[in-house]
């Protein structure tokens, strides 16, 4: 059986600075993997390569055996056509640190846009589905509100509903609680936890160590553009094998 996600020898440079120095990672259907590490370690960049928000210069990323972003023909590596990349992006869903809801659309319209324009769903069907997912994140009563009328936590939950309604094979969470006030963090984490229990495959970049510990089936520790250590959360957090991870965990807070 092919892995849901397979990253091989991923290299990414910004100019002359190499931020990913050969990352390998395989992920099965239904896994929940948290990616931790200090800022600048490349964890967000790695996530953003998976849906081609960042270009990468070396290595391959495959989802369900399908190579993402680039194709190699006759030894020449070429970026795939934009239309193809857009289609591949729809295989993953992403939630961002800054929510990035579309401010000129209601919560329901935010969720519906991709369904109607990308999935070519009829408006009625899309509305029903959007309402179902807004209900799942506890915001059905806010469906006609604009992002500016919602709290940060509510906006993030709408953003998650918008991504998940597209029925992605894999969800990418990029520090989704970092921009939230402490009292709003929990409501968002609860939503993600519920998705994990439903068997959604997820890659979660996070600074919430307790959450990573509780929700993940596996944790990846990124260090200076490479995977520093990986394993199940219990072993990782309680018995770190590397100096680096022990150091990092010491400076992190568990709350």
């Amino acid at each position, binding site marked *: 059986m092919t892995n849901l996600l397979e990253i091989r020898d991923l290299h990414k440079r910004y100019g002359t600075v190499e931020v990913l120095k050969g990352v390998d990672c395989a992920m099965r259907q239904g896994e929940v993997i948290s990616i931790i590490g200090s800022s600048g370690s490349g964890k967000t960049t790695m996530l953003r390569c998976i*849906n*081609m*928000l960042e270009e990468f210069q070396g290595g391959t990323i495959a989802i369900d055996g399908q190579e993402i972003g680039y194709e190699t023909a006759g030894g020449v590596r070429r970026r795939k056509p*934009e*239309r193809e990349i*857009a*289609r591949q*992006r*729809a295989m*993953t*869903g*992403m939630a*961002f640190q*800054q929510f*990035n*809801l*579309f*401010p*000129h659309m209601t919560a329901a319209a935010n969720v519906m*846009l*991709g369904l109607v*324009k*990308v999935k070519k769903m009829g408006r009625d069907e899309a509305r029903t589905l959007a309402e179902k997912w807004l209900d799942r994140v506890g915001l059905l009563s806010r469906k006609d509100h*604009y*992002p*500016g*009328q919602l709290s940060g936590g509510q906006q993030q939950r709408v*953003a998650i509903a*918008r*991504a998940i309604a*597209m029925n992605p094979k894999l969800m990418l969470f990029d520090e989704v609680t970092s921009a939230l006030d402490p009292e709003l963090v929990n409501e968002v984490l609860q939503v993600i936890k519920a998705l994990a229990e439903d068997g959604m495959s997820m890659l979660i970049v996070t600074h919430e160590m307790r959450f990573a510990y509780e929700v993940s089936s596996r944790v990846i520790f990124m260090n200076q553009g490479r995977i520093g250590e990986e394993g199940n959360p219990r072993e990782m957090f309680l018995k770190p094998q590397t100096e680096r991870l022990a150091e990092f965990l010491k400076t992190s807070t568990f709350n």
Partner: protein
Amino acid sequence: MDFGFLDQLWVARIPLLKGLGVSISISLLSIVVGTVLGVFVGLALTYGYRPVQWLVRGYTDFIRGTPVLVLVLASYYVLSTVGIDLGPFQAGVLALAVFCSSHVGELVRGALQSIPKGQTEAAKAIGLTFPQTFAYVLGPQALRQALPAWVNTAAEMVKASTLLSIIGVGELLLRTQEVISRTFMSLEFYFFAGFLYFVINYGIERFGRYVERKTAVPS
């Protein structure tokens, strides 16, 4: 005296009305053509390939650095020397439309660049193509952003339409001057013309406000 002015106004009503009509036509045409052109200018400035950007940047900087009057005169007198023979009305509208396009281009560029990058990324992440992203995410936001400044530009175009009197287009100002040269009532008729321009621009401004209110996003 007052009675005399109203009397003269009645006598001059046909040329003045025609002048007003011409002024409105000039303004409308140059605003519409200038805006359509300007949107493309703005798109090229924001998303064009480097050489295209440089070319269009040169165009806008050159046009915006040139007095409108010079553009009007050049359009009428210079273009004919290279074989493009335009009537005064056409030449004038062309000059104003070009002027308008450079301003609208800058407005559109500014509005598009003020939209946070996260908007494009979120649109990409749900699988929208670039044209879709522009149509449903960036465009509507840029429109709201650019509207107030666009209303200003439109009002500027109405005022700039008076410059076409220099090349003999029978718009409101030229017709007013003709009436004054016959009646010697300069104060009254200039005031009257000024009043008409004010009414047009006030109307544009009210319309702009109305659209702004209609498209405002609740928060």
